[in-house]
C-alpha cells in the first residue's frame, strides 16, 4: 500500500464565475449520464438546471440571487448580488455513508477520501440516509449508490481531480489537506482585511462529521448555499438514541409495572 496521504478540495466561492466547467469535466471524466432521466427541464432556479448533487452529478454549481449587496461590490440594482458555489462530496472525517454501509462497499482510501466500490455496492441505500449533506444517491437504472470519488483513478495516476483541473479561476483547489487549511485561512484573512466581513470557512469546524476534507469559503450563511449549518452523522447520536430508547423502555416498564401493581392492588 502506498503511503497514506490526506488530500481534499478547497473551494473558494469568491472567485467562482459560475461557468460549470467543473460539472462538465467531472461528468466527462467519470462518464456520468445526464442528470434528468425525465428529459431536460428548465428549472427556473436561476442558472441552475441540475439542481443538486446526486448519483449523476458529483460537482454541482448553485446560483443564488440575493436581495442583499455583496461586500466590495456596488450595483445600480441596489441591494442585490448573485453568488455561485460549486458543491461536492465533503469526504467527511466521520462519514455517515461509510458508517451506514452494511456491505463494506464504502471505504476510506489511502488518500483519506471516501470511495464507493461499485462492484461491492448492493444498492441497499442505507448510505443515502446516512449522509447529513444529502450528497450520495442511488442511480435509478442500476440501483447502486454513487458520488464523487475525488477522482480516485486520477489520484492513483498522480493527477489532480478533473474538476480542479478544469476550473479556470482556481476556485477549486486540490491538494494536501494541511496545505489547503493554510490556503483557506490565508484567503480568509485576505478577504477580512479587504472588508469582506461576511467571509467564513465551512468544513473544518463541522464537529458533527469530524471535519471535512472538502473546505469551502463562503460569504453568507451556509443555508443560503443549501448547506446544513450543523450536520451530524446519525451514528454520532446513536448512543443518545439508544439511551433514549433505554429510558423509554425503562419508563414503559415502570409504567407497566405500575399499572400491574395498581390493578393488582385494586383486586
Amino acid at each position: 500500500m502506498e503511503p497514506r496521504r490526506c488530500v481534499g478540495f478547497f473551494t473558494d466561492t469568491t472567485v467562482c464565475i459560475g461557468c460549470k466547467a467543473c460539472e462538465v469535466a467531472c461528468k466527462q471524466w467519470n462518464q456520468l449520464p445526464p442528470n434528468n432521466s425525465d428529459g431536460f427541464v428548465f428549472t427556473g432556479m436561476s442558472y441552475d438546471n441540475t439542481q443538486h448533487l446526486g448519483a449523476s452529478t458529483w460537482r454541482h454549481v448553485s446560483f443564488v440571487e440575493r436581495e442583499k449587496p455583496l461586500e466590495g461590490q456596488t450595483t445600480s440594482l441596489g441591494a442585490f448580488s448573485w453568488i455561485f458555489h460549486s458543491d461536492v462530496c465533503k469526504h467527511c472525517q466521520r462519514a455517515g455513508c461509510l458508517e451506514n454501509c452494511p456491505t463494506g462497499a464504502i471505504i476510506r482510501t489511502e488518500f483519506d477520501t471516501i470511495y464507493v466500490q461499485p462492484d461491492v455496492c448492493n444498492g441497499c441505500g442505507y448510505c443515502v440516509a446516512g449522509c447529513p449533506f444529502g450528497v450520495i444517491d442511488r442511480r435509478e437504472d442500476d440501483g447502486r449508490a454513487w458520488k464523487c470519488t475525488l477522482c480516485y483513478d486520477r489520484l492513483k495516476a498522480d493527477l489532480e481531480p478533473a474538476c480542479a483541473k478544469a476550473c479556470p479561476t482556481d476556485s477549486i483547489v486540490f491538494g494536501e489537506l494541511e496545505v489547503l487549511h493554510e490556503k483557506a485561512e490565508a484567503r480568509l484573512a485576505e478577504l477580512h482585511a479587504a472588508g469582506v466581513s461576511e467571509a467564513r470557512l465551512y468544513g473544518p469546524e463541522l464537529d458533527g462529521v469530524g471535519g471535512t476534507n472538502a473546505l469551502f469559503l463562503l460569504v453568507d450563511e451556509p443555508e443560503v448555499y443549501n448547506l446544513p449549518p450543523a450536520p451530524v452523522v446519525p451514528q454520532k447520536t446513536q448512543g443518545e438514541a439508544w439511551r433514549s430508547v433505554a429510558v423509554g423502555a425503562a419508563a414503559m416498564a415502570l409504567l407497566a409495572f405500575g399499572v400491574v401493581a395498581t390493578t393488582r392492588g385494586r383486586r
Partner: protein
Amino acid sequence: MEARRRGATIVHVDPRFTRTSAMANVHVPIRAGSDIAFLGGIIHYIFEHERWFHDYVVAFTNAATLVKEEFRDTEDLDGLFSGWKPDKGRYDIGSWQYEGVGEAVPAAGHKEIFAEPGAGKKRHHPRGQDVLDEKRDETLQDPRCIFQIVRRHFSRYTPEMVERICGVPRADFERIAKTICDNSGRERTTAFCYAVGWTQHSVGVQYIRTAAIIQLLLGNIGRPGGGIMALRGHASIQGSTDIPTLYNLLPGYIPMAHVEHTDDLDTYLNANESATTWWSELPKYVVSLLKAWWGPAATKENDWCFDYLPRLTGIHSHMVTVADMADGKIPGYFVMGENPVVGSPNGALQRKGLRKAKWLVVRDFAPTETAEFWRTSPEHERGEVRAEDIGTEVFFFPAAAHTEKEGTFTNTQRLLQWHHKAVEPEGDCRSELHFTYHLGKRLQRLYAQSQEERDLPLKLLLWDYPTSGPHAEPSAEAVLAEINGYTVADGKPVSGYKELTDDGATACGCWIYSGVYANGLNHAARRKPAREQTWVAPEWGWAWPANRRLMYNRASADRDGKPWSERKRYVWWDAAKKKWTGEDVPDFIEDRPPDYRPKKHAKGIDAIGGDDPFIMQADGKGWLFAPSGTIDGPLPTHYEPQESVVENLLYKQQCNPARHEFRRRDNRYHRAFADPRFPFVLTTFRLTEHHTAGGMSRPLPWLSELQPEMFCEISPTLAQARGVVHGGWVTLTTARGQIECRAMVTERMRALIIDGRRIEQVGVPYHWGVVGRVRGDAANDLTAFVEDPNVTIMETKALTCDLVAGRRPRGAAAHEERVAMDEEMLLRIEEARALDEEGLRGEGPPLAEPTQKEPTG
C-alpha cells in the same frame, strides 16, 4: 479574475446583471444601443475635468492637427457631418481632411474603395504624398485643431444627457468616469474589454472608435495594462480576420481589388498603398502573396498574376449574399462550422435563401438547423413549405474536432497557439484543411484539360502541400511555413516581413504572420512555462507582428524615449546603444532616435518621425479624429438603433445615416422609434453553457442539461405588467417573426428610466433551434437584416419587440397570424407615409416598403 486578485477595479456596464457583473466591483445597467452616449459622456468628462494626458495627447495623437476649414460637425448639422450625399446615402469625405493635405490614408485601406473620393480610381502615385504638410498647433488652442473639434463634438454628452439617454443615474456615471480617469496617466493604465454587445449595431464600429478616443486621450494605448480588447466568441475569430474569411480583405489586411478601379497591379497598389509610413510597404506584401499563390506562374511580365484575383463588384457581405440567394441570384452555398439559420439575423429570410439555392454544403459535427432546413423549420410547422417542394441539394460533411486535427488558434491579443492532434477523427470526419485541400485538388483535376483562359487561375494555383496518413491529411505545418514566407530560390523560411520584396524573390501567405516559422521552427508551438521566462512571456506561442506582445509600444515611452514612469516602463530608447529596447520587441524602427524628424517630402518609412508610435497611420499619430477609414463619420456620434424605443435626444438625425438597410417585405422593420406595437428593448446574448448557434453544444447531453430550454430574462415589473409568471411561457414578437420561450423573471433585470419614461428590456439567448438534443425557438427569427456600413455586421444587440404571456400559435393558426401581420404591415406603411408628410422626424418611412409581391415563405 487575475487582474481583480491583483487589485484592479472591474467595472461592468451591461443591460443585464450577468455572471460578469457578479465578479465586478461596479455594475451599471444601461439601455442596449446607447453606449456611444455613455462613452461620449466619459470623453466629455475628460474635457470638463481636464483629465487628458496632455504630453501623450500632444505628442502621439493627431490632437494638434488642423482640419480643413470647410469641415462641419454634427453640432452644426444636427447629427450629420459635412459631405453627406442624401441621394447616394453616403459621405464624401473631402471636407474631413487635414488642413494643407490633399488626402489622408487610413491604416487598412479597403473601405475607401466605397467611401473616399477618387480612391481606387486610376492613379499614378500613392495617396498621402503631402501628409507631412499638415498644419499643427501644439498649444491645442486653434478652434480648428482636432483637440478642439473633439471637445466641441462631445460638448452635449453631459452627465444629464447620459442619464436621459442611457438610463444611468448621474452619480453612477460620474463615479465610473472618475474611476477610469483616476486609473490612467503616467503611473497607471486602464483597459477596455468588449464583446459583440458593442459590435452588433448599425453603428458598431463607432462604439469601438469612442473607446479608442478615450484611451488615446488618457494615454492608454501602446502601454502595458492599457488597450481595447475584443473578447472573442470563438477560438480563432481573430485568426479569421487576419487570414480572412471576409469578402473584402486578402490575408494581412490587404484590400481586395475592386472590379471598376483596378485594371492592373500598379493602379491597385497606387490606390491602396500610402506614400508615407508602413503601408508604403504594401507592394512587397502583395507581390509576395501572389508568389505564394501562383508560384512560378507569377512573373513580373504578367503582373504576378494579379488578374487571377477575383474582383469585388460591390458589397458581398453575408446579409447581401443571403438576400441575393433569396432572390434566386446565387446558386450555391458553402457553410463550414457555422449555423446561420440559428446564428444569423432573420432566420426566416436565411431559410428562404437556402430554399432558393441549387446546392448547399454544410460541414459540422452533427447536422445543424442549416443542414436540416429542408425537412424541419418553423415554416414546415406552419404548413407554409413542404420538404418535397424544396429543390436544394444538401451535402453534409462530418467535421473533425480541434482535438482531431492540428493547426493554430489566434486569440484577441494576436497570439498564435498551436494545437496538436490528440486522436484520429472517427469515421468520415475530416479537418477543414483536408476538405479544402482535396476539393482544390479535385477541381484542378477537373479543369486540367481545359483550354479556357478563365480556368488558368485554378489550373496554375500552387496547391502542393505534403500529405500523410491513410486519408492523405495535408500538413498544417507546411501551410504555416507558406504563411510565414520563404525565399523562392531555395525555399528557406524568411525571418520576418522585413525580408519580403516586391521583385518576386520572396513568397509569403500573410505578411503580418511572417516570422512565425522563422528558421524552420514552429514558434506558435512554443510552450515555455511563465516561471521560466520574463513576465511578458515572449516564448509562449508567437504574436504577430514580429512576436510583439503589445502593439504601438513605442508609446510606452515619452517623446524623448524615456518611460512615462518607472511603474509602467516597457519599451524605451537606450541612448548609449542608440536603439530601442525594453521588455518586449519594440514596435518601432530599432535605431530611429526619438529626436528624428522626417525631411520635407520624405517618403515611405523615412516619413516616420522618432515620436510617431502609430507607424501604420499615414501621419504616425493615434487618430482622435479619423479623416478617412470610417464610412459613417470622422467622429463617433450617438445614433439610435434601426428600431428604438425612443427618439434621438441629441440630434434630429435618428439613426446612423450611412447604415445599410434591406427594405424588403421579408425583412420588415418597425417604426424607427416608439412603435406602440413593440414597446420593449430586445437584446440577444450568449450563455456560457452553449456555443453560439448550438451546433457544438446542443448535441451534447452534458452541456444541454445545464441550459436545457430557451428562455428570456425579464424584470419582475415587466412580468407583472404582462401577467407573466416565472418559469411560464411567453411569446415574443417582432415584424420578422414570433417565438415562444420560458420566462426567467429576475431581479437581475431592471426597468430603466429613459428621459422620464420607464423602459423595459428583454434579454434573449440565441442558442436554440429545431434540431439537436435540446430544442427551442431561435431568437434570430426575431432580428432583422441591417448593417453597420464599415464592416457590414448585423444589429442584434438592440431592437424592439413585444412580449405577451402564453405560447405562440401553431400550425395553420400561426400561418394565418403571419399573413394578417403582413396585411397589417401594408396598412401601416400607408400610415407611415402620412406620418412622414406630417414631418415625423427620422429617416424615410419608419416601416418597410414592400419590394416583392410574394408573401414571406
